[in-house]
């Protein structure tokens, strides 16, 4: 008669040998699966979250989104966000149009960068003078239809790696809801995100922003008008015509 | 709208869990022996380990507690074959569904 296993009695020899073999097989399978899954993860990109607190000096604006216009030519615009998943609109409000020095962490991917303003009231230093510097806007002109993904630039430029795709969708929608400006990454051009604006060139808000949030993190087809603000490429979009691919 | 519904769900579920947790504490201190005499003289660890279940299924446990005076009859597990064919039927239905869902999800990515 074959061996019979009872949990609370001693294990029969054959069953013991069989079980040992099973443990070896199961461990090998687990190790193999861990190895395959871990090694085939997609490239999270080369975005960098700065190691130290940086200082940037320039003129503070908040149209269309809170940003710093750096001195020098060509004009550089650095978007500002707060710590956590929040924009910097409220913090910028007291210093609009002023020359300021902002302390924070630089998030960078390729040429695209962003400044996370440090916590605390002294993170934005008012340098006194109000400098009349206008944002150089190249009005939206070319009509384009781009394939790509709407992203939240904070995660995408280095807060999370990877900071795009379906699994990041919920986080990205939380970021956009918190006031971080929406951007768009065209397929094959990961280092050149576009800033998204409404058709009048203003910030996307309200229902339009909600529609943008519906599509964030997904592969979409985006009809838009391309332009630029300072050194940042922009896309003026009507959210109603965005389509899933 | 979605936010409103989400908040409502969180409040309802949170309330359910909170009531369940408070109930569970009371139950393991004074109710468990009345529902199941085997719990008399049971270890403290046993009482701790059933807390999550009591908190999660508190309406069921409450009903048992209230009915405890009438006596309990666990009953026999039931006949054998119906159970196995249920298992087979479940997998006969589920396997094609799983494969279909899998393919649909892959086509759409």
């Amino acid at each position, binding site marked *: 008669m074959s061996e019979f296993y009872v949990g609370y009695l001693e294990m029969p020899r054959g069953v013991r040998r069989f079980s040992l073999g099973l443990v070896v097989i199961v461990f090998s399978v687990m190790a193999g699966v861990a190895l395959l899954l871990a090694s*085939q993860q997609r490239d999270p990109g080369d975005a960098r979250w700065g190691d130290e607190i940086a200082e940037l000096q320039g003129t503070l604006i908040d149209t269309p989104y809170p940003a710093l216009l750096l001195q020098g030519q060509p004009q550089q615009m650095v978007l500002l966000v707060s710590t956590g998943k929040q924009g910097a609109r409220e913090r910028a409000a007291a210093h609009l149009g002023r020359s300021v020095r902002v302390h924070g962490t630089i998030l960078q991917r390729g040429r695209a960068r962003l400044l996370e303003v440090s916590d605390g009231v002294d993170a934005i230093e008012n340098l006194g003078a109000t400098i009349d510097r206008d944002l150089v806007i190249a009005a939206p002109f070319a009509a384009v239809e781009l394939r790509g993904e709407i992203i939240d630039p904070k995660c995408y430029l280095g807060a999370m790696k990877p900071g795009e795709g*379906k699994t990041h969708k919920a986080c990205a929608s939380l970021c956009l809801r918190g006031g971080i400006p929406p951007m768009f990454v065209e397929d094959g051009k990961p280092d050149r995100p576009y800033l998204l604006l409404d058709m009048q060139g203003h910030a996307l808000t309200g229902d339009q922003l909600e529609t943008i949030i519906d599509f964030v993190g997904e592969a979409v087809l985006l009809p838009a008008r391309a332009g630029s603000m300072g050194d940042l490429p922009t896309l003026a979009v009507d959210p109603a015509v965005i389509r899933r691919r | 709208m979605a936010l409103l*519904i989400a908040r409502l769900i969180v409040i309802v579920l949170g309330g359910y869990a909170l009531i369940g947790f408070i109930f569970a504490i009371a139950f393991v201190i004074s109710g468990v022996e009345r529902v199941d005499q*085997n719990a008399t003289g049971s270890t403290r660890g046993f009482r701790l380990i059933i807390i999550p279940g009591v908190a999660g299924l508190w309406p069921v446990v409450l009903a048992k507690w209230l009915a405890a005076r009438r006596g309990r009859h666990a009953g026999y597990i039931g006949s054998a074959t119906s159970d196995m064919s249920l298992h*087979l039927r479940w997998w006969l239905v589920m396997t094609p569904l799983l494969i279909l869902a899998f393919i649909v999800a892959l086509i759409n990515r």
Partner: protein
Amino acid sequence: MSVAYRTVQWNAHKRVYDLVIIAGIGLYLALFMVVGSLVWRGDHAISLMILLIRAFGTCSVVMLHLVLCIGPLARLEPRMAPLLYNRRHFGVATFLVGLGHASLVLLWYHGFGVISPPVSLLASNVQYRSISAFPFEMLGAIALLILFLMAATSHDFWLANLSPRVWKRLHRCVYLAYALLVAHVALGALQSERALIYPTILGAGVVLVSGLHLAAGLRENRRNRQRRVEAVSERWINACNATDIEDGAAVTVTLPTGERVAVYRNGTNLSAISDRCAHQGGPLGEGRIVGGCVTCPWHGYQYRPEDGQSPPPYTEKLPTYRATVNAGRVMIDPLALPPGTRVEPARIDEVNDE
């Protein structure tokens, strides 16, 4: 069981079993983290938190596959019985690893925002009508809730107090949890990860789990038909030859009513009891007589063959059947007697002219 409850009824095998589970989880997580941080390094490094989320998530998916294979494997190959013996702890471990994944996700993807993490989980994506955009997180959350209910009710206290039938039904919801989890992965991670290895491994897992369950179910069905026995008179059913039954073991037959009966031989005594263990429905006919008692192959629950009762202090009871031997054939009265009814065993050398 009818002795005072303890936290866990440990014994040597369960300890070894649990150590193996913990070692397996540790091995998987460590390998995933090490390989994950070696493959993408420097500026291309994956965030530590995201690596952890992926390690825990994939680990619990692998574990659920393994735990779901145990049932059918033990049906197909009796030497797999030790896997089944402590399956509950495997299930609880699977839930805990899944909980680790969910907690990290809630903190990392849903935290630090302007709305609270649980509200964000429910409201951040409501594209329920889309396939590619479907809120896959909810599928995982419901699967985890099912695993929680199972883990939380895994103590024998729940088996006794929810009744074995309800308990079994609740725990069969694991199949639903599995389906939800497959959809969670297919509509989540597989939408972003482009490497072919991910759908390949998940597909292989689905085929393996479904295939094993179908194979075990079909075999069980076939066996039930083969073991079907017919009535020879108004009262008696011809079960088998008395000599077909090995001493200390049983022959299982399916009555015309569909019930299964285990006919046990203990020396020269023959007794017929229900095939279904009162604990979790284990196939008693595949058990043995150990220490004079019928012993279930799943968790070692014991019953006296003559009255279907567990020896004191235990209180489980099985329905019994009248049996007799006629011209070398074992005859069974298909009328199940109330659980625990004593029946005089038939004797293998007995001659009965009824």
